[in-house]
């Protein structure tokens, strides 16, 4: 193993990040990436794409699902709202439950006969519901 030296960037990054805080399950909408990131556990993770829009985060220790990244969220929600205007009922005060995003994505997948994919979606939905995860999407469906 080779250590990486500290740099001006790394020093500034550490200053900005500050001290770690106690982990709680959380989800955030990132405008820069137009993505929702959901984390249910604090484990170091790796990404595993399950389709064009969803990447599952799995624990490096035991491969269990610890979170996920949903890309293209704004566009996806707009498409769903066009097809199913009633989806707007899931958007309240600019926030949408992350479990609803997973459920909508699972319903829209052309690979519904892929059992492993649907099991993964079910686990994601359960994890997001348990965490009561919501993401602020103030531009959508308000």
């Amino acid at each position, binding site marked *: 193993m080779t250590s990486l030296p500290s740099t001006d960037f790394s020093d500034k990054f550490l200053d900005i990040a*500050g001290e770690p805080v106690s*982990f709680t399950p*959380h989800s955030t909408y*990132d*405008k*820069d990436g137009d993505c929702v*990131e959901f984390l249910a556990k604090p484990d170091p993770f790796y*990404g*595993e794409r399950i389709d064009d829009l969803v990447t599952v985060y799995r624990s490096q220790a035991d491969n269990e699902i610890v979170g996920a990244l949903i890309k293209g969220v704004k566009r996806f929600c707009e498409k769903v709202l066009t097809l199913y205007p009633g989806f707007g009922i899931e958007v309240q005060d600019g926030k949408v439950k992350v479990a609803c995003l997973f459920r909508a994505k699972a319903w829209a997948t052309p690979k519904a006969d892929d059992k492993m994919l649907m099991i993964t979606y079910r686990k994601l939905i359960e994890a997001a519901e348990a965490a009561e995860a919501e993401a602020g999407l103030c531009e959508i469906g308000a």
Partner: protein
Amino acid sequence: MGRDRSRREELAVQAVDPADGTLYELTLSYERIRSMALRGRGAILEGSRLVEYVLQHPAAIFEGLRRDADDPRYGAGWRCYCGTPPCAFSGNGDEINPPPGMVYLVFVNDEEVVYNWRWDRADSDNSRLPQDHGTRFRERLL
């Protein structure tokens, strides 16, 4: 994405320009960096050290993150830097060997903002490239 960047707090980082091998400037939002505090010391240290390393020592750079098959232009200008850092950090911040069979990915949007980074499975035929690299990106630039 129509953001007003003039009021954003951003940290600059240098990255290899795939066009000519020189360095050019990208940015990270303070908001994104601060969110690392929720993930623990290991995530903070990985962001501070591995992101810059991979941006300046990429094994590959891909462009055009595939998102939506019915929009051929979507994802243009969005880049993914892929590298194999010499170290990693455990959840509590201890420096450790990189996880086997993994590469580190850094994602950049079309406004040259670094918006995400993480470990990802390596390709089974080339341990320096991410899994499914042939189908998940439109073009390899480096």
